[in-house]
């Protein structure tokens, strides 16, 4: 709890303009992928970001790394505003902030050997000579549980789990402090998922890494995360310690989300909250609370006033009018 804040996002916003036509084009509206998101990530913790497809969780991760340019808001890494960096300063900062991708096939260049893939970050940042880089590649391979001779192979010669290990090794090559893990196990077989999750936890302990863990798999999140942020239509609707969130979800959306998780005991009574309708379009999000169109508890004020994220218990925040703030 007392760990210092590593990443601080305030009012983080990404609007994608929808344009159509030749040269200037008409503006057809704006996709509000991420719309004013605030959170802190503390050193050494794993903050999980959960939500349905299209709720903006991947965009949020990419915003932190400046892979997507924020429309507004600030991102502070150890107090320094990453959103304001440019050129060489940004390039240097990238050493500390890395990413692991979902797709173990698409995230490795098929025309490079694993050795070249792992050496590339060192080449880009001018670290070491050829021998030093070869040594570092060997180190990285053993760090993620691959063999030395794998360096000469191409990505297509590996299984999905092995490729994900290569992806993790590449992200670690520059000894970053913070990793965005964008659904790192969703594309893997269940048996392999556990291996990769365990590897990531070991690495986190050994290298004192901080993770932003983006996922829609709540079982995995419960296992790996220290805290969980729930996103809906570009906003964070609830944020709490993992145990607290799973035990006492306060936001109706979180409650619905958690009720969808299958339980291993078929006799245990389950109260499934089935949401009606689809997620509204992020081009024209509903006025007031964005969830009111599907919320089973919505009241008059929910349609008009947008709720803000407020503390509802120590270390637990929710954005819902119906949840009383702690005084």
């Amino acid at each position, binding site marked *: 709890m007392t760990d210092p804040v590593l990443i601080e996002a305030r009012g983080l916003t990404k609007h994608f303009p929808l344009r159509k036509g*030749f*040269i200037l084009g008409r503006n057809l509206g704006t996709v509000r992928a991420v719309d004013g998101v605030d959170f802190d990530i503390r050193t050494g913790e794993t903050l999980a970001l959960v939500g349905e497809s299209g709720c903006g969780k991947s965009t949020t991760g*990419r915003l932190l*790394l400046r*892979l997507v340019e924020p429309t507004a808001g600030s991102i502070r890494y150890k107090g320094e505003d990453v959103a304001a960096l440019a050129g060489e300063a*940004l*390039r*240097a900062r*990238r*050493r500390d*902030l*890395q*990413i692991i*991708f*979902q*797709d173990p096939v*698409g*995230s*490795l*260049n*098929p*025309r*490079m050997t694993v050795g*070249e893939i792992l*050496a*590339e*970050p060192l*080449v*880009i*940042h001018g670290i070491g000579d*050829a021998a030093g880089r070869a040594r570092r590649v060997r180190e990285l391979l053993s760090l993620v549980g691959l063999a030395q001779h794998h360096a000469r192979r191409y990505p297509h010669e590996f299984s999905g789990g092995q490729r994900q290990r290569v*992806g993790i090794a*590449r*992200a670690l*090559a*520059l000894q970053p402090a913070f990793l965005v893990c964008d659904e790192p196990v969703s594309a893997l077989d269940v048996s392999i998922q556990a291996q990769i999750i365990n590897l990531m936890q070991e690495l986190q302990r050994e290298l004192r890494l901080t993770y932003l863990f983006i996922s829609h798999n709540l079982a995995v999140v419960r296992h790996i995360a220290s805290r969980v942020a729930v996103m809906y239509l570009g906003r964070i609707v609830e944020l709490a310690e993992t145990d607290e969130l799973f035990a006492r979800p306060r936001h109706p959306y979180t409650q619905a989300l958690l009720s969808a998780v299958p339980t291993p005991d078929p006799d245990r009574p389950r109260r499934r909250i089935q949401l009606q309708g689809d997620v509204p379009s992020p081009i024209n999000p509903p006025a007031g609370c964005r969830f009111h169109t599907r919320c089973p508890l919505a009241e008059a004020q929910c349609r008009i006033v947008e709720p803000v994220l407020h503390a509802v218990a120590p270390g637990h925040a929710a954005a819902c009018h119906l949840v009383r703030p702690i005084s």
Partner: protein
Amino acid sequence: MTTADLTDDDRGMLGRIVDPALLRRLFRNRSFAIGFTMFVVVVLIAFFADLLAPHDPLQNNYRYRLGEPNQVHLLGTDNFGRDILSRVLHGSRVSLVIGLLVVMLTAVFGTLIGAVSGYVRQLDNVIMRVMDGLMAFPPILLAIAIGATLGPSLFNAVIALTVAYTPRTARIVRASVLVVRETEFVEAARALGAGHLRILFRHILANSLAPLIVQLTFIFALSILAEAVLSYIGVGPRPPTPTFGNIIAEGRNYIAEAPWITIWPGIAIMTTVLGLNLLGDGLRDVLDPRLRVEGR
């Protein structure tokens, strides 16, 4: 950001395309094997034309004009008494050089234009509208117009054909760049802080080459055909330089009396183009299986 970050331990791009497993797959493809063999034969003939040709291709012999094929002139002679066999053998050299130059220049300019267009989105619209403009003309007509403006010569023919075929190549490169730039390995390279040049060459173009190579084999074939058209109407390399097109052009007035003048270079064009097309089909089937035509 500079070219310096491309060097290091980069093997050439070709080095990574030609791997033994791929070659095995290519030669197991019948179309590729036949086309490759035909093309290699043509190239060898062109290369050793000096040794193979029984006569000087430019040597006039007024005592034996429009001569029928016989033991001295295996394929007969033309209206100046020049040996057709020797002219066709030497002609293959000029035609192949034109094809090769057009392919190389088209590859360079097409890749450059296509890569910039696909990578720098702000320029995309402008560049592609210019390319569309060029593509509005049938390539042969455009080449004729350019060739006629520049005057008949081998290099002007090369320039004309390069201008005519570059837009198509650029479009193909742009299309693959647009696909590859969105892949996660490109995003990973950006996250690592890679410069634009490294991303473009090492990551995007290295993975966009398959369709380009296929297209270039067809452009090779098309250029050889187009050279014949340009020469035929007199805007190609100047006679008496033997090219397939020139030989046919000179024989056209004597088709009835001396059909051998036009038939043999015609067969030579057919063999070369057929070989290249088969080779291209095979390459496409192996490198770019999505485009494979059913039932082959």
